[in-house]
């Protein structure tokens, strides 16, 4: 019998949990959640949310897979090709996830239900759009009760977005440290003073943080106090306008320079595009990661063929630009994400198991590493062998571009530092990759002196 494996990220909620069985993901609904689940389905809320593309759809499973006596039902949710995390999202991805959460909460209240949590981890990106994935997050709304997820919403969405908009967009990386959202007292310290003059930020972050601090030493129960539905809807409306008012726009020079300044004429660029297309077409992978994707020009060569493509870049500005293009063109197979390849997302949470590392989310059928190798070797002192070993671990086939030392982009990296890279040669590059990948084809991009390789994994890295 095939083993049933619980997914470590879903153990906190006693309503049920996710598990993997024969390569498929299932969600067990516990008997304690029966009343809420029945209300979700029978009230028409599930149908309304799924029809609007806000909630992930599922089908009920009749196979006997239950793991414990408290099992009420097993459902199989729609498959998400790639799980991404809030600290990997750009500004607009986090903002749209926040708007989605509030929209769901407003609709849920119309149907007599309420969200019992508002974690950003309950949102994933599917077909270019954010979607709510936790079917067990809905509870029957009791007239007079507060929104139990209010604190979580402020910490997971409003606080990081305010810091990104008023402070620095890179502060979203704090979400990697604080998995249950940013502490509001910390956010208050980091926000510039001018943010206090924005009424919603003052209330939902500064005063909220003060109130948390005050009562942390004097815990009191306010359960006897009720909030009527009108007040609750107004509170959600206020959060909604606070989120919508937050804005961050990348400066054009932050993302547009690269292709103009790179060593490519439009003719050479077109040729490179043709070669990459030809390599992708030869392998026809179903999944592809483009590492160092910039604004995703080459990622789109894959995603337009229907390949599920993740477009990673270090720059929040490039990722934002890439995502805005996904929205503008209604692209379905492209997911832009922020990633520092020299320090990729680690395993996080309890027992290092709640959130997966980048490596755990692989391997992928194809990896693209275009115009990146010189940044890794010369910009980050990474030996070719280490790069080859890592790529072998995460991908089955590889399109990689070798950029010679004579290239203006490499010279730019070397102009401010001593050249301690006598081994940065194409021969050593090929020799270092050989234990990990076989070279299927190499094509010289004549006018640039760069070479594109198609490689295939040969062994497993240790």
């Amino acid at each position, binding site marked *: 019998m095939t083993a049933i494996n619980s997914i470590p990220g879903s153990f906190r909620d006693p309503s049920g949990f996710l598990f993997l069985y024969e390569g498929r993901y299932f969600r067990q609904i516990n008997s304690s959640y029966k009343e809420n689940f029945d209300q979700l389905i029978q009230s028409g809320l599930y149908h309304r949310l799924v029809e609007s593309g806000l909630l992930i759809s599922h089908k009920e499973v009749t196979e006997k897979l239950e793991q414990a006596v408290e099992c009420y039902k097993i459902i199989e949710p729609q498959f998400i090709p790639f799980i991404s995390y809030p600290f990997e999202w750009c500004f607009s991805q986090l903002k749209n996830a926040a708007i989605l959460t509030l929209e769901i909460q407003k609709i849920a209240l119309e149907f007599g239900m309420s969200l019992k949590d508002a974690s950003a981890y309950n949102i994933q990106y599917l077909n270019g759009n954010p979607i709510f994935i936790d079917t067990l997050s809905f509870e029957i709304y009791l007239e007079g009760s507060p929104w139990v997820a209010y604190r979580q919403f402020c910490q997971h969405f409003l606080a990081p977005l305010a810091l990104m908009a008023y402070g620095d967009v890179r502060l979203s990386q704090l979400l990697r440290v604080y998995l249950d959202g940013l502490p509001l007292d910390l956010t208050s310290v980091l926000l510039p003073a001018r943010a206090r003059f924005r009424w919603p930020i003052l209330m939902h972050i500064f005063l909220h943080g003060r109130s948390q601090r005050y009562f942390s030493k004097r815990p009191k129960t306010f359960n006897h106090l*009720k*909030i009527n539905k009108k007040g609750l809807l107004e509170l959600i409306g206020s959060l909604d306008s606070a989120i919508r008012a937050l804005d961050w726009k990348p400066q054009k020079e932050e993302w547009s320079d690269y292709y103009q300044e790179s060593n490519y004429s439009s003719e050479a660029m077109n040729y490179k595009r043709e070669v990459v297309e030809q390599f992708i077409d030869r392998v026809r992978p179903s999944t592809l990661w483009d590492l160092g994707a910039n604004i995703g020009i080459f990622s789109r060569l894959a995603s337009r063929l229907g390949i599920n493509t993740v477009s990673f870049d270090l720059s929040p500005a490039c990722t934002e630009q890439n995502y805005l293009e996904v929205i503008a063109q209604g692209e379905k197979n492209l997911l832009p994400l922020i990633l520092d390849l020299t320090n990729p997302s680690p395993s996080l949470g309890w027992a290092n198991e709640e959130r997966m590392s980048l490596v755990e989310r692989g391997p992928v059928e194809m990896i693209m590493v275009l115009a990146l190798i010189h940044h890794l070797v010369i910009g980050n002192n990474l030996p070719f062998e280490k790069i080859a070993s890592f790529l072998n671990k995460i991908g089955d086939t590889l399109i990689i571009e070798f950029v010679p030392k004579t290239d203006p982009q490499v010279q730019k990296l070397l102009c401010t530092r001593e050249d301690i890279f006598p081994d940065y040669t194409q021969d050593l590059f090929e020799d270092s990759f050989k234990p990990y990948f076989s070279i299927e084809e190499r094509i010289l991009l004549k006018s640039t002196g760069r070479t594109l390789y198609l490689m295939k994994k040969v062994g497993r890295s240790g």
Partner: protein
Amino acid sequence: MGNRLIIFYFTIQSIGGSLYFCAPAYAYQDLGSGSYFIQIILAALFGGFFFLKQYWKKVKNFLARLLNRKEDPNDGNQ
């Protein structure tokens, strides 16, 4: 701070009427006293604004009707 907040809460409650008393409910997320408190204050505040807005609309409509009536010579015959 506590007393001031409590006075503020009761002032808001008397304006908005958005709060009343109920039994505690079970939830797996801990809202926390601080978040609970600020939420009831804000909900009451917004509820209060909404109430005042509605009331002000009623006053405006009443005044508008009153003025229209004065301007309409046939109004008294109906």
